[in-house]
């Protein structure tokens, strides 16, 4: 059988961000008349491969072909000229301009006298084609549209044709803000577009959409393609399994928690309520950005002091985004560590240098902060050691509850193991930990795990039920109870 040349082909692409391999030798060819479903959990490399294809990111290694010819140099402009269109999760329209004006920005060739009329015709036609009966006035400013309407315009923009037809449309979570009816319309349009010879890459966490729409499914994990089959080759369970790792080992033994007293409650507007008991390590799992951080912040804001300092704080927080809400970069390691416990380190309102130094020395040995002198600037430490300082800051408070917002981001394996040990010890001593993490193995260290989807808790897993398979299954649509 003679295949037509691929609309687009990436061969052996590798992208590294520092020590992180975002893409590790990925080859992917997209033929005309094909809809590729791209799945994998967070950090698998889906967005990276999309950026490589649309020209936003130049891989350190690998080649890019289109219609059998190699494209070099390659960039966003070249990609657009080849008919590559992208719809991102983060909406990219200018909110202060009308839909017509946004169309003009997207299509450079639209310029010249009377462009408004031409742009109006083009975008209106595309909206009508994708979402019949959409009810959007294309003269409206984007800012007044609802989030779903913006997403619709964004999608219609990608499929619109201003003299240069789209050939490959990349849809990154296109249905995340659309309701079921609109999603059905979109997927129907994708099928029509593909039947007419177009190519589509569809990224979605809604596995049913992928299974129904894609003609070929590509599963990514840790920057590699781990499975690739025609759509019929997967069912829902098989797809979930392909995304997870095959062998999962138990990292530590977990205790089954009895009915001990609850120290932290948060009623949720929807879904299951949140509850944490004394001495428990509670995990917050699910795909990134599905409400875990928001809930941690809500818990923190509810208990943190605003006007009057508290000697006995109810909660303490370990930030994952060190640069944004963790460290104070003008200060020494010691000052960074003791900032949360200054009331304990002062007498009659005055800071006690001796007490502060002693506190620093204790924690320096206890969690092995690798520095010659605690007076050194915080920025002299490696990322992992900075994170340890943040742990020391939180653990040295008297707060009975520690909230952790993906605290192991960018921390090396050795440090992680040390911190896991500390968390375990502290939990046994009666501290409660609420731990959001995108890493599966960290969830397996928890006593109980809440799985989030779209801002609500959709499942609660306890003890041996905490497994990568169960978490993934609950994270994706359709399988959770």
């Amino acid at each position, binding site marked *: 059988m003679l295949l037509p040349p691929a609309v687009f082909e990436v061969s052996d692409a590798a992208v590294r961000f520092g020590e992180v391999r975002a893409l590790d030798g990925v080859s992917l060819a997209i033929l005309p008349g094909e809809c590729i479903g791209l799945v994998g959990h967070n950090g698998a490399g889906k967005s990276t491969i999309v950026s490589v294809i649309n020209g936003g990111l130049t891989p350190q290694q690998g080649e890019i072909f289109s219609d059998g010819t190699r494209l070099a140099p390659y960039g966003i402009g070249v990609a657009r000229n080849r008919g590559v269109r992208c719809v991102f999760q983060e909406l990219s329209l200018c909110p202060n301009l009308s839909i017509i004006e946004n169309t003009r920005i997207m299509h450079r060739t639209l310029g010249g006298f009377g462009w408004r009329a031409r742009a109006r015709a083009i975008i209106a036609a595309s909206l009508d084609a994708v979402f019949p009966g959409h009810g959007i006035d294309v003269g409206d400013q984007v800012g007044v549209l609802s989030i779903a309407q913006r997403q619709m315009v964004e999608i219609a923009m990608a499929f619109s044709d201003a003299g240069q037809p789209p050939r490959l449309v990349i849809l990154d979570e296109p249905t995340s803000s659309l309701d079921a009816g609109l999603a059905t319309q979109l997927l129907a349009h994708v099928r029509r577009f593909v039947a007419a010879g177009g190519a589509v890459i569809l990224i979605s966490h809604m596995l049913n959409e992928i299974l129904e729409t894609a003609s070929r499914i590509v599963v990514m994990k840790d920057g590699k393609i781990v499975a690739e089959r025609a759509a019929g080759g997967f069912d829902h369970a098989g797809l979930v399994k392909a995304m997870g790792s095959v062998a999962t080992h138990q990292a530590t033994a977990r205790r089954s928690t009895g009915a001990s007293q609850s120290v932290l409650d948060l009623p949720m507007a929807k879904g299951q309520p949140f509850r944490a008991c004394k001495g428990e390590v509670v995990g917050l799992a699910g795909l990134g950005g599905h409400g875990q951080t928001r809930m941690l912040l809500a818990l*923190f804001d509810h208990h*943190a*002091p*605003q*006007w*009057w*300092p*508290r000697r006995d*704080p109810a*909660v*303490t*927080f370990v*930030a994952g985004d060190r640069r*944004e*809400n*963790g*460290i*104070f*970069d*003008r*200060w020494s390691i010691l*000052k960074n560590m003791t*900032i*949360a416990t*200054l*009331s304990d380190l*002062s007498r009659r*309102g*005055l*800071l006690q240098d001796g007490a502060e130094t002693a506190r620093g020395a204790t924690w320096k040995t206890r969690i092995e902060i690798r520095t010659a002198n605690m007076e050194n600037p915080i920025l002299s430490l490696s990322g992992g050691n900075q994170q340890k300082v943040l742990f020391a*800051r939180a653990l040295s*408070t008297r*707060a009975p509850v520690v909230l952790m917002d993906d605290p192991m981001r960018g921390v090396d394996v050795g440090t992680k193991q040390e911190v896991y040990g500390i968390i375990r010890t502290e939990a046994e001593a009666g501290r409660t930990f609420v731990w959001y993490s995108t890493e599966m193995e960290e969830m397996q260290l928890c006593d109980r795990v809440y799985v989030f989807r779209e801002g609500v808790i959709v499942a609660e897993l306890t003890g041996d039920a905490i497994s990568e398979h169960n978490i993934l299954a609950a994270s994706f649509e359709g399988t959770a109870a």
Partner: protein
Amino acid sequence: MKALFAKPWIWSFVAAVSVWLATIGVTGGASTVGLSQAALTFAAFSVLVGIGQMFVITLGPGNIDLSVPATMALAGTVALKYMDGQNGLVLHGLIIAIFIGGGVGTLNYALIKALRIPPIIATLSMSFVVQSAAIWTNRGLRIKPPQVLADFTTSTSLGIPNIALVALLMSAVAWVLLHRTPYGRWIMAIGQSLPAARMAGIAVDGNRFVTYLFCAILAAICGYLLACFSGGAALNMGSEYLLMSIAVVVIGGTAVAGGDSNVPGIWGASLFMFLVVSMLNTYGVGAGVRLIMTGVIIITVILLASGRKDAIR
């Protein structure tokens, strides 16, 4: 020596001493004592408002108190009007001034917090309200201060002006607050990173409120003393202290972006600001040229001070 030159405040003192030497060099040392005492007196007023402004600037980008001059005017006029030249009411007057400062500070932060107005707008609009209140109470009258206070503010103890001693005392209190108490650490943390400070469990609103309160109270005390020193409250007596309060903070080596402040630099900068003008006056430079040169000299000192920070990083 090297450690000394790494201090952010050293340049303001280097500048102040150089200008002082350049001035008494011309007069042949004849006016040394007079010049020094005048410098200390006038610097003291700048120090008082400068310390308050420094605490506010410590809170981080966007934090500034523009209501300082109006607060000075209102506190000065109301206190003097109440005391009405009677020696027995000196303390009452001071307490009234402090209360006015407290009121302005509270309203400032109320505007910032409740209406979510940026501090620069909130304190500026507050200053119009306060200034109008001062005009309303004063009605253009010039009331004499109680004789005790007039004497106290214009005389010296052991050769040092009393006003300078008051400012020195306040500076010591400010230094302890900034470096030896949790409060000082907290506001410096807030200035470096507001989200990080919040996540570290610092009571951000409480600390910011107290800081705006402190700044307004210092401005009010300064207005009270200045009104007594200059023989009566005038509505425009605070006007030059708006720029002065900010300039002495910046020249003193405090980070404009917040989170890194120092008290000694305020003194160096305040002395410098007064001495530059008297030096140029001594040289007989015309008013226009004097303003230009003042500007150029200030820019030079700031450049020197910021060059130091780059060298460290």
